[in-house]
């Protein structure tokens, strides 16, 4: 009993020091007496028990008083327990366990269990700190002299109230033999309360030895611990607390006891139940049939216009652990790969393709986690948009044009080369019938050629570079206008029908009477009409128009009476329109609109096209107003040509563009072609066939099909047909002029290499 009561509390020991020491003394006494008794009475056991045997009557009273004392203490302890439960002070228990002498039942092998009772199942106990003795006791009879049960077969009652039978104890001989055999017999004692033999543990034995040797029972207790001067005379600067704890703090709280009592009652009644941890995982991961059908979607609220994420890219051959040899990197490629360390996104692969000899050798990919992470980022951070994927081949973008074969006839081969000039052949022009053409060159000559034979019929010597020649389109007059430096010569070429020649001479022989006409001052300052002298007449020159600046371009009206001349440097007087029959000239414009390049007459209507550097202006000559301004978008127009129908204009520019204007459609080009390698020098329409051509400095001329329909709703079709090469480059110049035969699908080109070529 004393051990049991002792095992409970340490705090009491500290406080009630005297009491405790008295207890210890009791124990020693008891044991000593036991020892003495047992040795005399019974030899069976050295220690029959810590309590007195039935023979020991003298100690009965003492025992009783002890018991009563103990019970009082126990009550106190009960309260103490509650205090402690609030403080959660469980360390004391374990410390106590060490001190308490413990005993082990024989029936068990392990000496580890500290209590004398049968081992309780190792259930985790909520009230672990509550080391009340009564709870662990198996025998419920209490602290009574066990000799009261001597006459009964049982020794007491267990927790359920069933009788505990006395264990069988053999006769003395058996006991003796057992004692002899058992090496532990010297420390085996009889526990009268349970009626079993108990082996004392080492601690118990030590304790007993200590007591017997009049030493302090607790072996671990150090009596010479350094003195702590609690109540020192030195005043601390910041004392933790100078006050000793009040005695009241050791007395259990009455209020808390009531509270605990209520709780105990509630637990007994089942009002408070222990908390059961919720198994959240099971509930959360319960799966069921979410979709009833495969592709039928039910109406649920979704995000607006969802765009599924693009699938990750599938691996190619290079990603293989054993790629074909051509995919592994050569040294150069590895260097390149390393060089792009700053900009890894430019690399072809994020890894170096490498061959592993076996699957065993393949290590984990070190960027795997990173790649997964980046993919996750892409999924929730990348803006998404629906993009149309192109499923077309580049060929599908190329328009389907009719085959050139179907658009014949057009010139394809060079069939004749006209040689004779010694300088650049800047300009050519054919006669209305198409039998002859005339060419003007930098070698200061004009040559008349017969197309059919290729013969040079005549050569006219002029003083200066021939800039432009133009054969009069009126078939009843044989006349050529040639712009040479400041002059425009009207020349009778002296070929073709003699009657026409004679008639031309007849007309031009005499200057018409200028009776009531006074040449305006403005015109007079610019130009004079001069009659040729005898020598000139004989060599074919009929009229000379002397301008005040160099003339670059002349153009006839389709009727053959009017013609225009252009002096680009003449500012507001750069364009002149001359009337041959009356030998009069006028300056149609009073203001300069830029550097005029060339002018052309509309074939049917009284319009004049004036090409400046950037624009082509269309003037109505009757109304004397600007009707249209065509925006070419080019930097420098070189030449223009008018379709025989008059509604379409071709503009060639030095910046390689060939613009087709449909006057009915807009002032912007209907189509702009850039199929020349260098600037375009000349453009021309065919009079009969749906053909047009352009000559360029890249020594080629391109013949195209340009069909204009009468139907107003149908736009012209333009198909490039053939690139005609042949001219040689001279001084960065290639082809200077292109000219279609009036009736045949033939093309003349004049080039910087002093030749004229005929393509048929």
């Amino acid at each position: 009993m004393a051990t049991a009561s002792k095992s409970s509390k340490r705090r009491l020991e500290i406080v009630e020091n005297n009491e405790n020491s008295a207890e210890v003394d009791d124990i020693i006494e008891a044991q000593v007496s036991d020892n003495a008794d047992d040795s005399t009475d019974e030899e069976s056991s050295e220690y029959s028990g810590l309590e007195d045997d039935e023979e020991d009557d003298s100690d009965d009273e003492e025992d009783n008083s002890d018991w009563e004392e103990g019970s009082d203490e126990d009550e106190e302890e009960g309260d103490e327990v509650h205090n402690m439960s609030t403080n959660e002070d469980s360390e004391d228990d374990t410390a106590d366990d060490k001190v308490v002498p413990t005993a082990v039942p024989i029936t068990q092998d392990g000496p580890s269990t500290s209590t004398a009772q049968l081992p309780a199942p190792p259930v985790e106990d909520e009230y672990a700190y509550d080391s009340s003795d009564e709870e662990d006791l198996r025998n419920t009879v209490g602290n009574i002299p066990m000799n009261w049960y001597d006459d009964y077969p049982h020794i007491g009652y267990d927790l359920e109230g069933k009788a505990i039978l006395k264990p069988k104890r053999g006769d003395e001989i058996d006991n003796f033999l057992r004692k002899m055999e058992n090496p532990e017999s010297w420390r085996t004692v009889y526990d009268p309360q349970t009626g079993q033999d108990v082996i004392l543990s080492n601690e118990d034995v030590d304790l007993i030895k200590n007591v017997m040797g009049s030493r302090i029972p607790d072996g671990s207790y150090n009596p010479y611990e350094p003195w702590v001067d609690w109540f020192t005379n030195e005043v601390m600067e910041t004392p933790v607390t100078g006050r000793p704890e009040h005695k009241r703090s050791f007395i259990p709280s009455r209020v808390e006891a009531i509270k605990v009592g209520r709780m105990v009652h509630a637990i007994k009644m089942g009002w408070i139940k222990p908390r059961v941890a919720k198994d959240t995982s099971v509930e959360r991961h319960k799966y069921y049939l979410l979709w009833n059908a495969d592709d039928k979607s039910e109406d649920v609220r979704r995000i607006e216009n969802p765009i599924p994420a693009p699938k990750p890219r599938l691996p190619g051959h290079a990603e293989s652990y054993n790629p074909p040899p051509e995919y592994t990197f050569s040294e150069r490629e590895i260097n390149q790969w390393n060089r792009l360390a700053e900009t890894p996104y430019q690399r072809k692969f994020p890894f170096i393709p490498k061959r592993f000899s076996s699957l065993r050798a393949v290590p984990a990919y070190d960027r795997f986690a990173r790649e997964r992470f980046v993919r996750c980022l892409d999924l929730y951070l990348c803006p998404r948009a629906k993009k149309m994927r192109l499923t077309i081949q580049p060929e599908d973008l190329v328009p389907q044009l009719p085959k050139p074969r179907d658009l014949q006839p057009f010139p394809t081969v060079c069939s004749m080369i006209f040689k004779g000039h010694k300088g650049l052949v800047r300009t050519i022009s054919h006669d209305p019938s198409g039998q002859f053409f005339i060419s003007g060159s930098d070698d200061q000559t004009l040559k008349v050629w017969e197309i059919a034979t290729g013969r040079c019929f005549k050569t006219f010597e002029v003083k200066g570079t021939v800039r432009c020649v133009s054969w009069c389109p009126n078939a009843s007059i044989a006349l050529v206008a040639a712009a040479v430096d400041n002059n425009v010569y009207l020349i009778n070429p002296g070929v073709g029908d003699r009657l026409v020649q004679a008639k031309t001479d007849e007309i031009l022989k005499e200057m018409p009477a200028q009776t009531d006409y006074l040449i305006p001052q403005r015109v007079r300052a610019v130009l004079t009409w001069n009659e040729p002298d005898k020598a000139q007449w004989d060599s074919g020159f009929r009229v000379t128009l002397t301008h005040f600046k160099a003339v670059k371009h002349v153009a006839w009206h389709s009727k053959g009476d009017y013609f225009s001349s252009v002096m680009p440097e003449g500012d507001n007087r750069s364009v002149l329109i001359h009337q041959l029959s009356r030998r009069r000239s006028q300056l149609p414009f009073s203001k300069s609109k830029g550097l005029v390049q060339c002018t052309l007459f509309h074939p049917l209507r009284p319009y004049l096209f004036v090409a400046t550097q950037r624009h082509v202006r269309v003037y109505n000559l009757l109304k004397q107003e600007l009707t249209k301004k065509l925006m070419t978008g080019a930097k420098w127009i070189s030449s223009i040509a008018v379709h025989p129908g008059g509604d379409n204009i071709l503009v060639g520019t030095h910046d390689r563009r060939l613009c087709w204007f449909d006057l009915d459609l807009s002032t912007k080009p209907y189509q702009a072609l850039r199929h020349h390698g260098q600037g375009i020098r000349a453009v021309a329409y065919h009079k009969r066939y749906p053909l047009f051509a352009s000559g360029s400095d890249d020594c080629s001329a391109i013949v195209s099909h340009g069909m204009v329909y009468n139907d107003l709703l149908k736009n012209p079709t333009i198909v490039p047909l053939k690139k005609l090469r042949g001219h040689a480059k001279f001084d960065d110049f290639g082809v200077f002029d292109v000219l279609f035969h009036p009736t045949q699908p033939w093309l003349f080109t004049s080039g910087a290499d002093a030749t004229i070529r005929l393509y048929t």
Partner: protein
Amino acid sequence: MGARMKKKYEAGEATKYITRAQALKKLQLNLKDFRRLCILKGVYPREPNNRKKAQKGKLDKKTLYYVKDIRFLSHEPLIWKFRDFKIFMRKMKTAMEKGDKETVARLKDNKPSMKLDHLVKERYPSFLDALNDLDDCLTLCFFYSTLPRDTKVPANLISLCRRLTVEFLHYVIAAKALRKVFISVKGIYYQVEIKGQPVTILINHLRGFKPTTASDVDYRIMTNFVDFYTSMLGFINFRLYHSINLQYPPKLPGININENAADEDATEEYNELVAALNTSLVANVPEAEEELQIDEFPSADGQDKLDEAKREAEAIERMKYLFKGLKFFISREVPRESVVFVIRACDGEASWDSSIFAGATYDETDESITHQIIDRPSVEKQYLSRYYIQPQWLFDCINFRRLLPVEDYFIGANLPPHISPFVTERLGDYIPPERQVLLALERGETLPAEEEEEEEEEEESEDDSSEEEEDSKPKKNETTKSQVVKEKKGMKVMRGRVEMPDIKGMDEEEKEHYKFRELMIRNKDKRLYRSMMKNRKSREREAKRLENKRKFHEKEEKALKKSTSTGKELTAKWSIQPLSSTTSDTQIKKIKKDA
């Protein structure tokens, strides 16, 4: 009264979009929660048609969301869960700091939890939608399932991923849905066909796998994804199992994953999962296979397409039972999970050393084993009754959809290149020779190697009879010569010559015409055309480069071979054997021949 003045950015594009900062303000969430919400709900920024208008004239680039999407988010009950959780954390923190264990325990018990079931349905209204998005889901779940326990990832999530992914693999095995496999340096790709939709999974290699070292990876974001993906995968698994009349969750032997047991040995558990792969879900596989029948319709596309479809279907059917009747034994150095999965998905049997891992069904000593998968240079003891092959054979067989000859894959053999089955070549792309063989097989053509062999045989036979022929040949020549002489003498109608058209000239004409056509491309298409042509040119250049490289390599290899050995090569490289028994026969014959 004039019309009300119209203000800028009050209609049209500008009102459709909202920036992220505005969205945060509107939803009253912090960035972390917003991000999480976006991930879970599948809301992403949108690219506006006109960014300047959408940003109300601001020039710096902003993350723009649809206003409607954000409004949709604001109705999400999860937001309240987030708020609950925030409060929970606050209480928890207070309690922890006070050391109030009682409160901490109570709070822990009542920790707010989220259910994401409704999100799955909402994001994927139909099952096919979900399948379409399965690639990322599976790859990430597989990645998580291989993570060690010491990562910053909750352990129960890893366990859950393991369970779900293994269940998915089981479905693939049971449904025989595996179509393509590819061992890449990143991991092993598997392509699975579910309901006609290809789903591609990437499973990482495990040797020296160190996921935690990557400092540039934010596992919290990925965990958000995995949270959603696990519930998605669970439902998909359920539906898949349901579709093949299996119960979900399956009762897999050896699997008792305790999700709360964090301290369990991870590797052991993983082994258990692999072991589970080796057990069949379906006790009795329905043996009666339906005969493949494609109804024939007279189609305008012609017979070719129909034939092709038929061939494809037959090949797939054959592939499903590719390893049927074959017994494999897997050596321990071979990655078991992938190999077992591949074998079982094609109806083979697999086992391994039972002393090392659980789940082995038969022993190495079993005489009925036909193939032993081995990945080391040599073995001491070899059984004569089986082939010792390297694991690549399995993967190549599946990609070729037939059993390949085992000679190239023997122990220590220099393996033939492993090519990707996922490449779809465009016109002008380079196709490696191995791939060409595969394509030819798919087209149902005979193999060039076989033909060569036949030719050789013919040559041999010719050699035998050459002596006889030699006598007759000169005679024939003489007669023909005399005939020619006779013909020259008399007047006769000679056989007319075929006049070849001037191809070159025509070509040039065509070329010129094409050039002119190119010139006539509309201006708005011109840039596109140019870029397309540029790409094509670069592709062609790349193809040419690879081709040259290959040629060079082959030449080098040939030279090396000549210098090292003059022995005969195995001629029948690509001959196809339907059964292993025949292969052994041919092999024996060959050995005899060589001898």
